[in-house]
């Protein structure tokens, strides 16, 4: 599993973590090599609904190139076996991915990736990452700590987004849109 070409996902969320799912041997009846490049994990403390965690992990994997069109998503049964979660939860996540046009079910085979989210090729991502590192060094030198950097980035990103959308939205109505 050497997809990691210097992208370095912070915690490999949803990434190909060989460690996860190890304890499943007993019930899963060997869910090894399920045919999917990724394996799901769950963060019980995140407060994010389980099906959304699965959706996010697929999107994350698409963005970082772990998943490409044509790749198979983990089989429902394998996800149930390795995470001990309700099969309907997995189906709901896959349905959501289908609604978003990112995946499609093939009868009798499973669910497959249909589109990609990584608009940028790997070399470009690497270059962008390098320039971001440069900016981070500047911020660090200016005295910002990690929380400050994250806050500034999030804030600026939001401004950027608003401006690009033509800032048509009312200023105060931010909270309920989060849902």
């Amino acid at each position: 599993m050497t997809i990691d070409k210097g992208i370095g996902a912070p915690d490999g969320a949803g990434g190909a973590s060989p460690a996860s799912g190890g304890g499943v041997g007993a019930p899963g009846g060997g869910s090894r090599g399920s045919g999917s490049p990724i394996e799901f994990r769950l963060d019980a403390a995140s407060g994010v609904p389980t099906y959304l965690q699965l959706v996010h992990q697929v999107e994350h994997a698409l963005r970082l190139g772990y998943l490409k069109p044509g790749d198979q998503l983990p089989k429902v049964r394998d996800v149930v076996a390795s995470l001990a979660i309700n099969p309907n939860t997995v189906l709901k996540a896959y349905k959501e991915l289908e609604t978003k046009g990112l995946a499609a079910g093939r009868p009798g085979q499973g669910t497959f990736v249909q589109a990609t989210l990584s608009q940028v090729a790997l070399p470009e991502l690497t270059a962008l990452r390098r320039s971001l590192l440069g900016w981070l060094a500047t911020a660090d030198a200016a005295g910002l700590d990690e929380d400050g950097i994250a806050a500034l980035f999030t804030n600026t990103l939001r401004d950027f987004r608003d401006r690009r959308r033509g800032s048509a939205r009312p200023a105060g109505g931010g909270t309920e849109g989060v849902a």
Partner: protein
Amino acid sequence: MNMNVVEASGLGKRYGRTWALRACTLAVPAGHVAALVGPNGAGKTTLLNLAVGLVTPSAGAVTVLGGRPPGSPAALDGIAFVAQDTPVYKNLSAADMLHLTLNLNRRFDRRYAETRLGELGIPLRRKAGRLSGGQQAQLALTMALARRPKLLVLDEPVAMLDPVARHDFMAIVLMAAADDGVSVLLSSHVLAELERVADYLILLSRGRVQVAGEVDDLLAGHRLLTGPAAEADRYAERPVVHLRRAAAQAHLLVRAGADDPVPPGWEAHPVGLEELALAYLREPGAAALPGPARGRALPAETGEPSEVR
């Protein structure tokens, strides 16, 4: 699969002068992993025992698997029950248990049982009493699933198990749901794990059904509002389930969806299943009974013994 695996109306059970379960009306649709939650003594075990036909009602009625009486041949064939603490015959080996269960049931998938036990690494010759707690639980579950039930009923199945054994046990249960469409009804007071496992919630409190419904609907229908304590009492848009208040700040758990208006100065957050269940358990007077078509609210509040069997 539109049937209800368990349907009760005005169901009550009295032991001596104490009502263990009262005026219980609910309909659990097939195809779910339904969690029965409530404090000790809430009536969970009584409800499960009524559903599998181990005890008879003092009031009201209960049917299973689409209208069949508990204890009828069809019900017995279609339901597998694992009682509290996953009991096994301590002096029998796994092989003996398999032999016994095979001969005591009209339907028993021997190959499934043997394959399963092999995968679990359970020594067939060892007495069940000398297996680990996790293996004993798995043995009981294997015997239950090898009967190929339509409904699997589990009473506090994982309470005694360590985290790994608990995970592996639930994985088997959920795979039965995924592979064979087995409906599951399980009681538990471990709230934290329910969110992953259950997609239907029944909350019992003091012998009554307090909350019943699909987990997604329940979560979508509740919000936590946080705002100034002084204004907490003025909130009247939607029913308040539970209120927590400090000097300046208050949290209201309300029955409101994402589209319901949020008062100015207040923030709305989605709630998790554990938070929602806790709020209801702290407010035995509150109820969320969406009342599916079949399980309408019953008129009388008391466990009237009008239909004593």
